[in-house]
């Protein structure tokens, strides 16, 4: 039986009569890197804040490691680390002091844990400086270190790549991979940088206007029931004429000497043979994999 570290059911919240989150249900298995995607204002941060009990839901239940966040807050939250939106710090305190404030809330955690995390996130050189002098990338890394102080089983990272330059993104991505490598930590990541999510996450859920519109394994969602291929031929008009009525062809678009064909998964070889049998020369046939970005845009912009 699958072990779920996070179970959310029927979570709803309205602000001033406007539904911000509408009956959201999610299950995140232990060890996953879960991506929570949605356009701006879709309800991602509100959902995370409700999971963390910072915002009171109008209805719904949140269970973390089996403990109800409302009824058994201390036990449920003790498994959690989080960075919600841009990591917030006491800017006049040093990086070390900011981590110390959180370590103080967990008396069982030895103070050496702070130095260990500072080393992992690569901030040893800056830990004695006030956080007001840190760059955004350094703050993100310090935020990640803070999220790990209590050795959490479940870590929420809300837009961890926000404001980072490409080098910073690579560093944070590698950091998350490093932290996730032991499979003892489950990550719940929101991001609008879909390439990052595609590279990191195993499962995703997409939220739009407060509602979950799709969720599942990244590979399966992207694969779907159809695939796209690009066909390069000098006889595009004749090719369109002969293939457009085939049962397994769903859509054909022409771009000069290139056709983009959407067809049932696994039928590309059959289509190639068919074109050859009709004496249409095929120069190239290139599978056109759907990216998470394409999938996300189709999901969030459709209906």
């Amino acid at each position, binding site marked *: 039986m699958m072990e779920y570290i996070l179970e959310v059911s029927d979570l709803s919240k309205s602000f001033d009569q406007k539904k911000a989150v509408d009956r959201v249900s999610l299950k995140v298995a232990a060890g996953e890197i879960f991506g929570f995607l949605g356009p701006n204002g879709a309800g991602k941060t509100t959902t995370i*804040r409700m999971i963390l009990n*910072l*915002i009171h839901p109008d209805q719904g239940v949140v269970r973390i490691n089996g403990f109800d966040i409302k009824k058994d*807050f201390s036990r449920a939250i003790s498994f959690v680390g989080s960075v919600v939106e*841009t990591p917030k710090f006491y800017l006049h*305190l040093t990086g070390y*002091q900011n981590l110390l*404030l959180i370590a*103080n*809330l967990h008396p069982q955690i030895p103070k050496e844990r702070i130095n260990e995390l500072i080393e992992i996130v690569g901030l040893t050189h800056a830990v004695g400086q006030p956080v007001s002098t840190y760059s955004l990338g350094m703050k993100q890394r310090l935020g990640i270190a803070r999220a790990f102080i209590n050795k959490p089983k479940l870590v929420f990272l809300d837009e961890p790549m926000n404001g980072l330059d490409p080098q910073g993104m690579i560093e944070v991505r590698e950091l998350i991979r490093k932290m996730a490598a032991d499979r003892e930590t489950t990550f719940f990541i929101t991001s609008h940088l879909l390439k990052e999510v595609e590279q990191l996450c195993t499962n995703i859920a997409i939220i739009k206007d407060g509602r979950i519109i799709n969720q599942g394994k990244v590979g399966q969602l992207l694969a779907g029931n159809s695939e796209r291929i690009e066909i390069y031929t000098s006889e595009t008009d004749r090719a369109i004429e002969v293939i457009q009525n085939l049962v397994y062809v769903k859509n054909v678009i022409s771009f000069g000497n290139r056709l983009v064909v959407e067809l049932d998964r696994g039928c590309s070889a059959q289509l190639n043979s068919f074109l050859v049998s009709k004496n249409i020369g095929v120069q190239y046939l290139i599978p056109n994999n759907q990216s998470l970005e394409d999938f996300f845009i189709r999901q969030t912009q459709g209906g």
Partner: protein
Amino acid sequence: MGNLVKNEIIKFIFTRKLYAFLIILSLFQLLPVVGSLMFKINIFNGQTYPLNFLGLVTSWIMPIFMIILCADMVTEEYLNGTLALSLAHPVSRTSLMTAKAISLLVIMTFLLLSTLLIAYVIGTLFFGWGNSFMIQGTTFSTFNGILLNIGLYGISALPLIAFGMVVMFISLQFNSGSVVTGVSIGLMLILTLGAEMVPRLQPFIITTYFNTFSYSLLFFRDLPNILMGVKMIVLYGIGFYLASILVFKKRDLVC
């Protein structure tokens, strides 16, 4: 709870406000020195010098510091998003508010005793230690004088913390530190002036006890006034503390 209080103290110790408060307190205490040097009048000695400031410090300066501290600890922390940091760990909202209330008491007591120490230093430096400690026509030994000063300053923290709970409640109502500061200072002025204009209201107004409570208690004069003071401090303190917790528990932390 102890660790939460420790965190609040750490945050305060490393803030520039602490040093600004201490500098302001020192500057106020230098004013009589300047006056005394200008007019060549010497009516002070080091032992009694702190008494000259008790009224000003407890009635005006400390309440304003209390307002600034509360606005910082609650409203500004909420707006900066740091209030939610502890609550994403096994810390209840009641514990967090209680820790903030205890920290306010500790910080107020520290600032009051620092004021006393600064007054001793400045008084002794400019006017000498003196031979006796005289208050309200009674002379005390040096040791008893020091104890009395510590008592007068230390006990003043009690009506101040009761007022602090009122400000904490106000801090939870607004999403701007400046609005909290303005409303709280306005309330303090209304209460103080109201008490002056309608003497019958004085026993029910917390600002009345800023200056008088510690004197009444230490010299055990006017028992009904002492008992009324205790009642009002408990009523304001506990009442607004509980109201603050109730409000905070229901609040959505969206920042």
